[in-house]
């Protein structure tokens, strides 16, 4: 209710959603920073998959998507996609993805797709440490990992 308002374009550095999908289109993480109903989410997931998987290595890591753009990078069989406003800083988000992936890699010790499946509830914690309310919250890998390990030690 009333959240339509925060969806106005041009509100600055703001992530609309983060998706991790494999090549077959299976979602490994979906984090939404805008209100969508379930059907809409499904539609977005399918569209993003269709847009991103047809591109090859010679293409840019950016693709226009509806009124936004997707910044994405492929790691093995996984596509990490961030949807942002068209005037946001492409390279900053591209490296935010990489920073996130390096944290996952460290945390899960050579992360693979299955880690994300079996530990899906922990991946959400990692995301919340690094991105919150559609903004970048923490960028230091050392700090994030320290916090994650502290949480890991809790009962």
């Amino acid at each position: 209710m009333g959240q339509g308002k925060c969806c106005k374009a041009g509100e600055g550095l703001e992530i609309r959603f983060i998706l991790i999908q494999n090549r077959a289109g299976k979602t490994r993480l979906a984090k939404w920073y805008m209100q969508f109903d379930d059907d809409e989410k499904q539609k977005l997931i399918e569209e993003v998959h269709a847009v991103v998987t047809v591109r090859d290595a010679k293409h840019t890591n950016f693709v226009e998507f509806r009124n936004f753009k997707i910044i994405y990078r492929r790691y093995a069989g996984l596509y990490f996609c961030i949807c942002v406003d068209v005037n946001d800083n492409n390279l900053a988000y591209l490296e935010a993805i990489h920073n996130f992936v390096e944290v996952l890699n460290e945390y899960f010790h050579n992360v693979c797709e299955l880690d994300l499946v079996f530990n899906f509830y922990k991946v959400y914690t990692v995301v919340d440490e690094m991105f919150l309310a559609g903004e970048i919250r923490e960028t230091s890998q050392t700090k994030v990992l320290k916090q994650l390990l502290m949480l890991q030690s809790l009962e």
Partner: protein
Amino acid sequence: MPAVSKGDGMRGLAVFISDIRNCKSKEAEIKRINKELANIRSKFKGDKALDGYSKKKYVCKLLFIFLLGHDIDFGHMEAVNLLSSNKYTEKQIGYLFISVLVNSNSELIRLINNAIKNDLASRNPTFMCLALHCIANVGSREMGEAFAADIPRILVAGDSMDSVKQSAALCLLRLYKASPDLVPMGEWTARVVHLLNDQHMGVVTAAVSLITCLCKKNPDDFKTCISLAVSRLSRIVSSASTDLQDYTYYFVPAPWLSVKLLRLLQCYPPPEDAAVKGRLVECLETVLNKAQEPPKSKKVQHSNAKNAILFETISLIIHYDSEPNLLVRACNQLGQFLQHRETNLRYLALESMCTLASSEFSHEAVKTHIDTVINALKTERDVSVRQRAADLLYAMCDRSNAKQIVSEMLRYLETADYAIREEIVLKVAILAEKYAVDYSWYVDTILNLIRIAGDYVSEEVWYRVLQIVTNRDDVQGYAAKTVFEALQAPACHENMVKVGGYILGEFGNLIAGDPRSSPPVQFSLLHSKFHLCSVATRALLLSTYIKFINLFPETKATIQGVLRAGSQLRNADVELQQRAVEYLTLSSVASTDVLATVLEEMPPFPERESSILAKLKRKKGPGAGSALDDGRRDPSSNDVNGGVEPTPSTVSTPSPSADLLGLRAAPPPAAPPATSGAGNLLVDVFSDGPAAQPGLGPTPEEAFLSELEPPAPESPMALLADPAPAADPGPEDIGPPIPEADELLNKFVCKNNGVLFENQLLQIGVKSEFRQNLGRMYLFYGNKTSVQFQNFSPTVVHPGDLQTQLAVQTKRVAAQVDGGAQVQQVLNIECLRDFLTPPLLSVRFRYGGAPQSLTLKLPVTINKFFQPTEMAAQDFFQRWKQLSLPQQEAQKIFKANHPMDAEVTKAKLLGFGSALLDNVDPNPENFVGAGIIQTKALQVGCLLRLEPNAQAQMYRLTLRTSKEPVSRHLCELLAQQF
């Protein structure tokens, strides 16, 4: 570093996930899930109280099932219970479940809020962060109401941990964006700005986002952040690559924080304080210098992080647009990137250079890269890079390079992706006209456009070439010769036939002396295309033929033969039949003088004397009307709205291209008998002819339309602002609308007539009618004083893009308005495409020697072009579902400003323009409506639902349309009416 093993902690969960992964089919998966759901349900319902671990495990399984795409309708209570556990892992799963599955209407919200409250007060940073993340993830109004006051306190409290501050800042940002009214500004705001000085870079990173958002809404209150941001940025930029330790990323110090600070500074003009400005300029120079240094690492991460800062720096330089030196340096830097091996950098350089091209300081520097950009257009593999190259060429075009750029774009058009052809066509058409030195080049260019990409050449473009040719004697002969040659091609585009038909009909005589293009040759060339063309084009050609009879009497017999043929006289299409009958009779009954008068060459467009035309048309009766209905009759255009079916337009839609003909040219006033003779003759013909039925004189409904001026030749003007002869004052010439303008406009959203404005001097009344995408408005200006107004001039201005969205044709009014007198102004309005802002009405005059000026918003809103659509409940719901993309829906919940009377509401909704559908909504209190917005370019299907809540004195209004901005705009317009 200890790694996390597979699903450690919850074995049952890992087993379940493995089972699901081993399922060979969807059916097997569903079976396994149902089994699990039954198991969990029985555990939750069982007599034995579950321990925290089991509860956590089952809630987590439910969450997994939900994330697989299955509905979950229980377990919420157990999740809420987990929130009050004092074990982190249980709490975390509880919060995660709430964040992912929350329903703000849930009755549990009170319990959830209670748990959050306890955690926020717990002084345990881990729990506080969980609670803050939950608020930030859900961001509902209820949570805002409950916590908006607490969070600023937590944010600035001296004893809050750094991680809590980070989360609190972004949590507050989320609440502020969702419901700014709930976040109280106060003494905390000053302290928030000082977070820019915080020792912890993570706190600064989070705080900058919050401050940027607050600055956008209240720039003056947060001005102090400028100098703090500059000094922070300066410290980062000048630090060595290892100084910032944890915050150095691949040898780049704090790249994300730098980008955020640079974006924050873009909320403001350049700093006024010379010292601050000096320091900032130094920073910007340092970034540019560093771009030239050899990389500290070969990794792409290093260069990306470095360039993220560089591009943001360039954005700030462009935003300031005041430092020529920096602008040129930025341009040179981007120039290097244009040939970089990284596609990303080439793309971003093209994009960024596009904005540099519009600065007077760097325009010339950008132009030096023309060859590289042209090369990019030809060779880039990624279509989005090519598109940026085309954008940049367009942006850097001026008189010096127009020919080169236009010819390159034309060449590119031959192989361009379908997705961007139309845009390229428009760009070429605009550049060709804007920078045409000799108009033969312009004509060649447009004809090339049609030849290469005829399907993508819109009406605006080919109307425009006709208009320019008509108005310029020096190019008419050339145009006739060129179209004649173009038509020789065995397969030429229908748009070419239209342009050719029109131009030869007007100026074919200029090339008739050459035996190779003698009148019979011209005619047979055109007629060879006739049968392949659409009705609209054939109608245009018939008019060309009658003009030929006038221009070249030797073709009369042949053409009469064509007109007389059964395929014309008994054509199933009313318009064609009517034209054939009319023209045949005209050619045989009228004397050469009359014919010459009726078919006189088109006068130049702006000088056309429309009042005489209107008179002529009234005599003519039917067949007159707007040229612009045509698009709607094209069946393909009906699909645009993807939902609501358009209701059929009136049967006798007037001729599409009549206006492009000499037929409407005013006969010289010196020959009144001939004029009336011709007019009467035509009327007689109609009443006898087989086409008489639809033409028997306008029905009352049509009378309105039939009086409309032909807007066709004028409307293409909207395409271009520059050489428009009809001098609209630019928006800069007129003052801003008066403060009440919006309120006055709102009064007219649901009605068409009334007093628009009144003060001691002047009263402005409005009467208007709208039909489909056309409208006519009468403005009545009443002088309330006893003194004459002088230099009285009301004009209509289209701010921004509106020119391309709405065509408003005005007639001049007398420059003097006597005391106590009223003058009337007629406006003809055509909605070309959806628009969001109304045109402005600027009224200027002198009263007692003193200049008066006044700017109002003209009460033309998009809903005026609504056509109500009736449909059954089933259809309604089907369409409702079809329009389910998030952008297609707009919703507003608002307090009633007027008594909630169902009858009044009904009247307002009908006034708004939609049909009211009964028996659709299961709740009879609710209102459901449907309609189509008619514009020339497209139709937008609209569905709406208004749910009054008498108890709460609130409404909920939901709009779904096939176009995003339209949904929002309609929703805003309508919400203000109740």
